């Protein structure tokens, strides 16, 4: 398909890792700095789109050998259950809380339940973007 894309493919191999790591950073930094689940997911999706352009869609399929619809469902489930979780403690649906913990390696770290919710958002958005683009892209 792309016999002369050596440069592109090589750069992609490096760049995609950087993008993914950056997107993780954006995702985790969301609580205090610009970023969050939505933009993090979009950036991650961009890495996969780059791979699909440089190689092809099949490569991405092999990298994520799960049906995107399951990822969407899992994301929705996590986001929904994180809201239900607060109800177990007698609070309203989607009540969020946070606290500081001493974790090994990381030291004093703030952990918020909002992160669980954000993971749900993250998974949903990645799966939605990839699903839309690949569904349309495969339809030739």
């Amino acid at each position, binding site marked *: 398909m792309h016999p002369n894309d050596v440069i592109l493919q090589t750069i992609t191999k490096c760049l995609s890792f950087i993008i993914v790591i950056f997107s993780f950073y*954006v995702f985790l930094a*969301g*609580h*205090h*700095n*610009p*970023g*969050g*689940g*939505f*933009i993090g997911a*979009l*950036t991650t*999706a*961009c890495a996969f*789109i780059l791979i699909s352009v440089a190689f092809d869609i099949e490569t991405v399929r092999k990298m994520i050998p799960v049906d*995107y*619809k399951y990822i*969407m*469902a899992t*994301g*929705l489930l996590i*986001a*929904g259950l994180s*809201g239900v979780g607060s109800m177990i403690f007698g609070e309203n*649906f*989607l009540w*969020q809380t*946070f606290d500081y913990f001493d974790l090994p390696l990381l030291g004093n770290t*703030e952990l*918020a339940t*909002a992160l669980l*919710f*954000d993971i*749900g*958002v993250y998974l*949903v*958005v990645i*799966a*939605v*973007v990839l*699903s*839309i*683009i690949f*569904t*349309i*892209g495969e*339809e*030739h």
Partner: protein
Amino acid sequence: MNALHWATISPLLLAIIIPFIYKYARSIHTGWFVLALPTVLFVYFLSFIPTTSSGEVIEHSIPWIPSLGIHFNVYLDGLGLLFALLISGIGALVVLYSIFYLSKTKEQLNNFYVYLLMFMGAMLGVVLSDNLIVLYAFWELTSLASALLISYWSTREKSRYGAQKSMLITVFGGFMMLAGIILLYIMTNTFSIREIISQADIISSHELFIPAMLFIIIGAFTKSAQFPFHIWLPDAMEAPTPISAYLHSATMVKAGIYLVARFTPVFGGSETWFWILSLFGMATLLWGSLSAVRQKDLKGILAFSTISQLGLIMSLLGLGSAALYFNDGQANSLYYTAIVAAIFHLINHATFKGSLFMAAGIVDHETGTRDIRQLGGLMTIMPVTFTITLIGTAAMAGLPPFNGFLSKEMFFTAVVNATEFGIFNMETFGLAFPVIAWVASVFTFLYCCILFFQTFSGKFEPTNFKKVVHEAPIGMLISPVVLVSLVVIFGLFPNILSKSLIEPAVASVLPYLTAGEIGVDIYMWHGFNTELFMTFGVVILGVILYALMKKWIQLSIYKRERDPFNRFYDGALFTLSSGGKKFTDAYMTESFRRYLIYIFSFMVLFLGFMMVRLNVIDLVPERTAEISIHEITLVVVMIAGAITVALARTRLTALAGLGSLGFGMAIFFVLFRAPDLALTQLVIETVSTVLFLLCFYHLPLYKETKDSKPSKIVNAIVASGVGLVVTLLAISSHNNKLFEPLTEFFVNASYDEAGGKNMVNVILVDFRGFDTFFEIVVLVIAAIGIYAMIKGKVEEKEGL
């Protein structure tokens, strides 16, 4: 529940059981099971005569919807009792007649009797209800039952036409009446007729008095087939003859008369009421009698005759309402004799018209035709029917010694006296009344002659008939014989009615009179006076006209049977359906652009109108920040991008323009310090541009829109309108901030309560996480939708 309640709804209860009786007792004619009920009801209602004639009323109430003031009140006074007796008495006779008229084997008797009982119960409900909403419910039930009975032979097209027509006209009137009822409720705050009557003074000075009156009158006129709503009645003659006799001569068409009589204490005494009732009554009287002469069908003649007689009663009620003008009890007999005549004629008409319909049914049943051009010479073959018809037509024509003579003399008295009323300009216009009444009576006499002589005299032509003609079975003759006996009895001894029925009924119409005061005294001979000479004139001129019939029957107007007013009805119905279709076709063009123009134009006009009306346009900048050079540059770039999109000739150009808009927006987010938004906007813009490019792969070549110039101009106007209105709205609303935003709370709470320094994200996942949750649901739905559209394509089947 009181016995009267049970009596009122008993026909409806029996109607539920009828289908079972019909199914499990096929060997016996279902009518026999029905017959008992009206008979028992008749006897039951007879037992109230002593009560009402002593001026007492009976009243029982059960709550139905008390919170809305709707109670199922039965209220029995003279007027209600008179109607209840008519309904149950003639009902019993009609059921008896129908047993012999309708074949046990060929007809769907269960339907017939269910509808008939529905009607009977509804009619009793109308005349016995004191609550107007209950009355209205029963009123509409009579319309429904009537339409069902007219279309009893629903395989015939004319039956369905007649049923539809009567339904449309009477339900139209019913709705008008409902509007009148609601207006009365607004004025008096009650639905009870008696309480409304007790507040008649308040009503007559209220500004809604005239509208309420007109609505009630339209309701009564449509039901009672008054001019110009009379056109449904001749077409209702497609019903089986027992039904025509019962509904369309004796009971349902008198529901309007009942309503007018019932509301006379409320509206009577006013000039409008007086003139509308008497003029339309007179017009109906004249038009009905003129039209009846043109008919060739026995039931057609009887239908127009009914219209004419109903007009007579209506005009008498109108004239009599003048008595209420002097409602201090000083009224003399001059005014209220009209009411007495109306009530008396109501009874008389029910007796002779019922018998005539039954006779016409017998003729139809035994000869197979109702066409007077084929009938003739039945005198010796059907002697009993002949006698019945003779008495019935003589009473209808107003000949002594039958009851029609008496009531017509009283009618003449009322119209002759009308010039002496001295109110409502009657001293000048009153002269028209005797003239119209007299002319109408001449034509009444004439159609009675036609009806009678063309059926029974002349030569019998056996070839005209498909059947062997013979007299009807005895069972079919009982009912008309009973009715004509009443015609004779009421004619010879009218005073047996006056104390028992007429006086209490008149007392209900004119409530300030007590039964004793009225002193109704009807007698056969009242000396040589104007009325008698008018009757002589009617007979003489009628005989002459009948003798000369061969001459004037050639006139073209007498060849057309159908009422010319039908043309308006049919035309209106056609215009309504075809016009409705045209109108819908005109704007439902299935063009998506067209609908968008409607939506946007509405938005522009509505928002623009409201902004101008509420005077909220405020373009003076107050709280605006300074505009920097970056912003101006960016705006210029974005405007250029927008123009590029609008004028692009290829898709890629349009996409490039769109992209520049999106990235410009992202830079604006940066300038306005919204980093999260800027990031998201940048990535989303990129992803959606990729998606656009993917879609282009599948799209056909870019075509320029082929809009004509005018529609382009319209598009441009609408588009600039939307832009202008939205801009004005945005600027004005910025200048009209009514309260401080919530920002302060979020700024303070985002770290303290949610532990996050990124306020935007804290709002998204914590304070208002619920929104975010459903936004990701939206995304999932969109993805699944795209997946389903592309992967789940159903192959187009042939022929689809």
